[in-house]
């Protein structure tokens, strides 16, 4: 089917027919009573492909694994002709179940050996792992026992690499588990060794002992070898550039993926909790590659989120919120049921490496039931593209199957075959995505291959015909294997590099190579085992785009030695031998900023309130908005002090900066009650006595707690103490922010209090409050001056004279609302000029606005923080997100339903969420399939559709707004600034060049699980370049590393001696960064 269905005209890839290639291999899978998905949960995992030049004739050969029949070895005879030499070679594999395959020169004789994994010792499964040593004459000898690699259990795949830098290839074996998934257990299970399911590390004793054998060293290596590790794939690379190779293991189900960082002493530490903010849940294949040519190795993992709306709605996806929380409490890391692209952000001052999952931003998050992923440059433009295999013979996660099928169609206590018969099929097309640069992937010249829907598993790449283009080989289930010849016609340059390493690592596995040309820098690494149960050719292929010459090639050998080659030629395969190396000393780079621990004890503790338990249709929680922070010199010592608002149940704090250290005052709960989150605060002189008084506003979204959400004013009585003032009228508002300003120019400070949300009715517009200061008579609500008090779900506001009439105006941003400008008129009223000034189509998921002269042209511009582009949500003017308000169940409360565009306009929520809130909708949608493509029109009454949506979001980008003589111009902030929601901005001269940079911090973790955590941000430092656009200075250069949910960033101290930056985080300690003293302040090298 895969072959026959392909259109071959004018394509950039051509399928080589089996008649031409003589490759007739097909992974024939036969289901029977003993072998099926119910007897063995990984029955549909398919087979792999290993490509390597077994006879050193420069023609890469192909080895396929077959689950149930014989593995096949095909010798490359050139011109896409192959010869099946399995029988003479003696490499058929062992037993009745085989899985992953790889090639490596295990004994260091310069010839590629073959390793085949199997499943055995379980029910009727008799497979086992085999090592076939290459005899050099197209025959192999099974020397598994001799080498000490005999193992029978649940092997997925093996990877050969030198973990201890002793010059030989060690082996990591990733095993899966058939532990019942009925009980999640907890992470204490990791410490229980399980022989058949636990992963294993084998040390090669070739060097220094000179023995042809391996020793299992799992027990002392720091590797988890339990049955809760449902290991399906493994990748190896040096992620933190410490010259030791690290390991990434894909785990299925509740166990998070493992990131084993090499401790450089023969042991590993599992650091996913530090380095990854989340990982794929049903992690399958993986690959490592540098997708943005920054020299750092990124990780991609496959999962099974379908793009197709119908399949998405009819199959089980993300866990419900309570199960997410349950698994987190059991100690497992946060996971998402979709592909992850973990962008390597580099290392911090402690040597910890950090990744940002940018799969949604890059457009690679949803490729359905995906097995293999390979990152290679298929069009030679210098950027690595992505190839993904897909398809599941039966979808066990079909929700109608799970919930309804047995009752209606199958007899009770039916046999396996009956149960399987009713499981829907899931053929899916393979996916080829072109790297468009700038962290974005798109279709690869659409239609080139016209993939038919089918079931493809392992895949591998190599330039099979030596024409400078990478070809693809795919192992299909019950179909002939596909060989794809790359026929991209291009004048782009390339180079291929085959390494000849020293000692026992003859092909230089683990080496990282960077090619520097006149226009490009491209980094790749040598590693055979990649993707899914497969291994690709050891010859590295570099597309070099428009390069006209290679300046140099840098090889970092796995033993920590570096070699530089100058003046290599383009468009050739080079063989580079290890020589003239110098030792690479591992040292952490110096950065502009260092962290300061002065405020590390200042903690904000959030109370656990899960609004999703009350409002089932809610997309976002606004229950963790704090801490509020306010800054002023309270004690007149010319050092900035600050107020840190407490969440419900926790006291607010006053932190007084002293010449040496800080003094923290926990504010009495009698003074500032702890019955609601303090979410906004400001110091200002309320009564004109010259002292800094404090206004606070409260929020938290608790439906039953509105009576506690009252703003309060505290007057400074001197001596750093405050007393509650009666100058403020009683206002009940779940607020978001407060900003003081003398808007009426009468010499005293007035207030604007932003309404955040109506608890229990997300989407309704809460009231905001304008308060006029009447001196001793206190503040007066003057909402009549506003065009309406119900401005929207306000998040932030600035007071600024927008039109230069010397009267201050209001610029307001918030959730599901446009950047709203209220211009003060001569009579003191405010007029909404949003549309007039061209902001009517700026409805966004806005969090913050910050005003400064970005382009130094003498007027004030704005930077505005939005949700960003790194979630499953997309929005534009023509395809907005919409919030429909309806009381579907007629119970008197608003049911907010968000729609989005995915081929058409659909409700974002699942049938389960919807029918939990409105059970009677089960009548309308008796099956998940009935809801699969239900439009909002089917959900809501006609008159409500006619009224239109309540609110919309038309843009999700964080932007800067240029104030120019010809009007306002909107510019997107750089892609890195779209990776995460921006919650606050600040200016600070981080690189000490005399000009301030723009800082941004954020992350939001409280979304419905289908949206998931937005946690890819580590804080950003941006600099305006000569062409007036922002450029990001990487965190690894600035040293500005902000983990967690940042809420506020503030330039705390600014003196000749340098600056201090303070970051407030939700439910974590505050962070401080300072510049080093001038003489130490050298810039980092990358």
């Amino acid at each position, binding site marked *: 089917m895969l072959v026959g269905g392909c259109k071959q005209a004018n394509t950039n890839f051509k399928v080589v027919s089996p008649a031409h290639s003589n490759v007739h291999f097909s992974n024939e899978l036969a289901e029977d009573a003993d072998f099926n998905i119910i007897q063995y949960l990984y029955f549909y995992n398919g087979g792999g492909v290993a490509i390597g030049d077994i006879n050193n004739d420069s023609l890469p050969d192909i080895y396929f694994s077959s689950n149930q029949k014989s593995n096949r070895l095909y010798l490359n005879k050139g011109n896409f002709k192959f010869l099946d030499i399995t029988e003479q070679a003696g490499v058929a594999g062992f037993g009745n179940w085989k899985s992953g395959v790889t090639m490596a020169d295990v004994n260091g004789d310069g010839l590629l050996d073959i390793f085949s994994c199997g499943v055995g010792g379980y029910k009727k499964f008799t497979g086992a792992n085999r090592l076939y040593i290459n005899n050099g004459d197209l025959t192999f000898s099974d020397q598994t026992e001799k080498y000490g690699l005999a193992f029978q259990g649940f092997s997925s795949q093996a990877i050969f690499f030198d973990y201890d830098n002793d010059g030989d290839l060690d082996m990591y074996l990733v095993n899966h588990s058939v532990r019942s998934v009925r009980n999640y257990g907890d992470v204490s299970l990791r410490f229980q060794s399980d022989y058949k399911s636990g992963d294993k590390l084998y040390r090669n004793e070739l060097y220094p002992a000179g023995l042809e054998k391996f020793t299992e060293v799992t027990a002392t290596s720091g590797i988890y070898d339990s049955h809760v590790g449902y290991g399906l794939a493994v990748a190896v690379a040096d992620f933190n550039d410490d010259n030791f190779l690290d390991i990434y293991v894909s785990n299925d189900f509740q166990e998070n993926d493992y990131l084993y960082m090499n401790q450089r002493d023969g042991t590993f530490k599992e650091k996913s909790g530090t380095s990854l903010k989340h990982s794929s849940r049903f992690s399958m294949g993986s690959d490592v590659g540098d997708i943005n040519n920054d020299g750092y190795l990124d990780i991609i993992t496959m999962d099974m989120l379908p793009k197709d709306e119908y399949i998405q709605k009819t199959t089980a996806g993300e866990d419900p919120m309570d*199960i997410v*929380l349950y698994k987190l409490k059991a100690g497992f890391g946060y996971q998402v049921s979709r592909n992850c692209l973990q962008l390597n952000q580099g290392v911090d001052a402690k040597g910890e490496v950090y990744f940002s999952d940018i799969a949604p931003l890059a457009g690679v998050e949803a490729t359905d039931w995906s097995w293999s992923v390979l990152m290679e440059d298929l069009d030679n433009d210098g950027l690595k593209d992505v190839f993904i295999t897909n398809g599941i013979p039966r979808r*066990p996660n079909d929700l109608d199957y799970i919930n309804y099928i047995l*009752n209606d169609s199958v007899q009770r206590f039916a046999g396996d075959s009956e149960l399987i018969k009713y499981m829907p099929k899931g053929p899916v097309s393979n996916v080829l995505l072109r790297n468009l640069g700038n962290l974005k992937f798109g279709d690869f010249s659409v239609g080139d291959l016209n993939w038919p829907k089918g079931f493809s598993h392992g895949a591998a790449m190599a330039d099979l015909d030596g024409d400078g283009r990478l070809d693809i080989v795919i192992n299909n289930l019950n179909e002939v294997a596909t060989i794809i010849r790359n026929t991209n016609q291009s004048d782009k340059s390339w180079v291929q590099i085959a390494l000849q390493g020293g000692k026992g690592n003859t092909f230089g596995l683990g080496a990282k190579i960077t090619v520097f040309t006149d226009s490009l820098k491209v980094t790749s690494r040598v590693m055979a085992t990649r993707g899914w149960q497969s291994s690709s050719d050891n010859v590295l292929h570099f597309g070099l785009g428009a390069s006209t010459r290679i300046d140099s090639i840098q090889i970092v050998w796995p033993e920590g030695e570096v070699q530089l080659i100058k003046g290599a030629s383009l468009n050739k395969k080079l063989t580079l031998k290890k020589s003239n190396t110098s030792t690479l000393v591992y040292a952490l780079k110096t950065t502009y900023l260092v962290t300061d621990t002065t405020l590390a004890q200042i903690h904000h503790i959030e109370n656990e309130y899960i609004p999703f338990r009350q409002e089932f249709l809610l997309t976002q929680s606004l229950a963790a908005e704090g801490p509020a922070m306010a800054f002023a010199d309270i004690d007149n010592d010319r050092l900035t002090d600050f107020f840190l608002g407490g969440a419900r149940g926790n006291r607010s704090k006053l932190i007084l900066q002293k010449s040496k250290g800080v003094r923290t005052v926990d504010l009495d709960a009698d003074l500032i009650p702890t019955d609601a989150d303090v979410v906004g605060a400001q110091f200002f002189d309320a009564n004109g006595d010259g002292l800094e008084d404090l206004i606070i506003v409260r929020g938290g979204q608790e439906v039953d707690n509105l009576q506690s959400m009252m703003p309060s004013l505290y007057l400074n009585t001197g001596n750093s103490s405050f007393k509650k003032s009666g100058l403020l009228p009683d206002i009940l508002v779940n607020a978001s922010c407060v900003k003081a300003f003398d808007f009426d120019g009468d010499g005293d400070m007035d207030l604007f209090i932003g309404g955040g949300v109506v608890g229990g009715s997300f989407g309704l517009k809460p009231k905001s409050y304008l308060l006029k200061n009447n001196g001793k008579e206190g503040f007066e609500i003057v909402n009549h001056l506003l065009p309406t008090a119900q401005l929207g779900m306000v998040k932030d506001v600035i007071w600024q004279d927008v039109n230069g009439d010397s009267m201050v105006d209001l610029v307001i941003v918030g959730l599901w609302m446009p950047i709203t400008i209220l211009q003060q008129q001569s009579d003191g009223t405010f007029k909404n000029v949003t549309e007039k000034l061209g902001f009517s189509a700026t409805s966004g998921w806005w969090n913050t606005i910050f005003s400064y002269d970005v382009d130094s042209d003498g007027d004030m511009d704005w930077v505005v923080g939005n949700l960003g582009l790194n979630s499953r949500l997309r929005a534009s003017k023509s395809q907005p997100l919409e919030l429909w308000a309806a009381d579907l169940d007629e*119970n*008197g409360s608003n049911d907010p339903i968000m729609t989005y565009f995915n081929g058409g306009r659909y409700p974002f929520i699942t049938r389960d969420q919807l029918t939990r809130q409105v059970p009677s909708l089960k009548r309308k949608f*008796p099956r998940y399939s009935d809801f699969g493509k239900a439009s909002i029109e089917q959900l809501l009454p006609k008159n409500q559709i006619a009224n239109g949506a309540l609110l919309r979001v038309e843009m999700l980008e964080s932007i800067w707004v240029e104030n120019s003589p010809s009007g306002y111009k909107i510019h997107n902030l750089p892609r890195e600034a779209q990776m995460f929601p921006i919650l606050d901005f600040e200016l600070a001269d981080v690189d000490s060049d005399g000009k301030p940079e723009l800082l941004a911090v954020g992350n939001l973790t409280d979304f419905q699980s289908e949206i998931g955590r937005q946690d890819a941000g580590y804080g950003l430092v941006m600099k305006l370049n000569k062409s007036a656009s922002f450029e990001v200075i990487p965190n690894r250069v600035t040293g500005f590393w902000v983990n967690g949910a940042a809420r506020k960033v503030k330039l705390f101290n600014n003196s000749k001696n340098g600056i201090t930056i303070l970051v407030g985080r939700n439910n974590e300690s505050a962070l401080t960064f300072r510049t080093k003293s001038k003489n130490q302040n050298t810039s980092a090298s990358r």
Partner: protein
Amino acid sequence: MKRLLFFLGLLFIACNGDNKDYKALVEQPEFLHRTLKQVTDVIVHDIFSPPVASRIYAYCTIAAYEAIIPQDSSYVSLAGQLHGLTETPKPEPGKEYCFPISSMQAMFKVGRTLIFSEDKMDVFYRQLMSEVETLKVRGDVLKRSIDYGNQVADHILEWSGKDNYKQSRSFPKYSISNDPATWKPTPPAYMDAVEPHWNKIRTFVIDSAGQFKPNPPTPFSTNKTSQFYKEALAVYEAGKMQTPEQREIAFFWDCNPFMMNVKGHVMFATKKISPGGHWINITATACRGSNASVIESAEAYVRVSIALADAFISCWDEKYRSLLIRPETYINQYIDEDWVPTLQTPPFPEYTSGHSVISAAAADILTDVFGESFAFTDSTENEFGLPSRNFKSFKDAAEEAAVSRFYGGIHYTPACENGTHEGHLVGEYVKINLKTKSKKI
């Protein structure tokens, strides 16, 4: 409703020949039994939780009862006896009715409104009506009887709309507490706690959800010498040393409306009748065994259903008061990580045992209706692949239902014993306070 009226229209056209004996012929209790069984089947298909199912049974049977009693003046209406139920519409004096048809129609309409899969109800109704057709009831009488059934149904449905059920759909979900003594979601589906606010549903006869508050459960402890640990250990050991008969008893009374089966990677739900539905079936068995008339059957159903519904409210009130941890969670954590109970743990707190409470209440009513030593064979579970069981009396069956939860590994002993006591208190109260007819069948 449009489709339904359409069927009726067809029917009237077809119904032209009258049969003088139709009055005797409509006195078939099977119409009522089958209608209620159809409601049961759809409840199972639509996956209603046990308390919600009990609510459906209550309203269906109240409607059926109210629609048939004009036939016999020795029966009294439940209006004024059930909280908030106002006087039921009366038939037109002097006009002829077939009240068994009204009763069936009222039950059908209430059932169809409260379930989801209307199409399944309609298929059944078409069949039922084609059978009614063969009785050749006089056209105007048939129409009038059906109209009256609908009228009663509408009255009951309007009343049902005020029981706080609709509002309770958007009450907060149960918040999992970190307190080790409290209930946590259980394998394999880790479902949300079912109906945490069921005590806010209007009761039928009992004063309030908390009227028969049982003694508190044994204090939680992880200490190996504690009573709680011993009770958990008893569940664990009973599971390990189970006899085939105990196992059979456990499964016979499993009554899990949504059991998630896990076979490797494959999950699928199997569904069984709810505990309340089981007792409805026993009631049908008893009616048939004693040759109860239509009106006697309607009376038996309504009394049992109301006792069941109030028993569920009482039990659920305690469940979310004590919030007790299930044996599976406790045993996995403190005794044996790999232990799996014989039955799948239902998704709500442990104390008291729902099956114990409702079985005791139902048995009290059935004993009152059919007598102390009414022996019967319960074949309810045949369609779910299980054999029949014989019981000497309703009390005998209720006691077995209670202990089955201990055998099944989903309850500690006090939940069964105190639950049975709680059920008797509800049952006795309903028995005394709900008047249908003074004379027993």
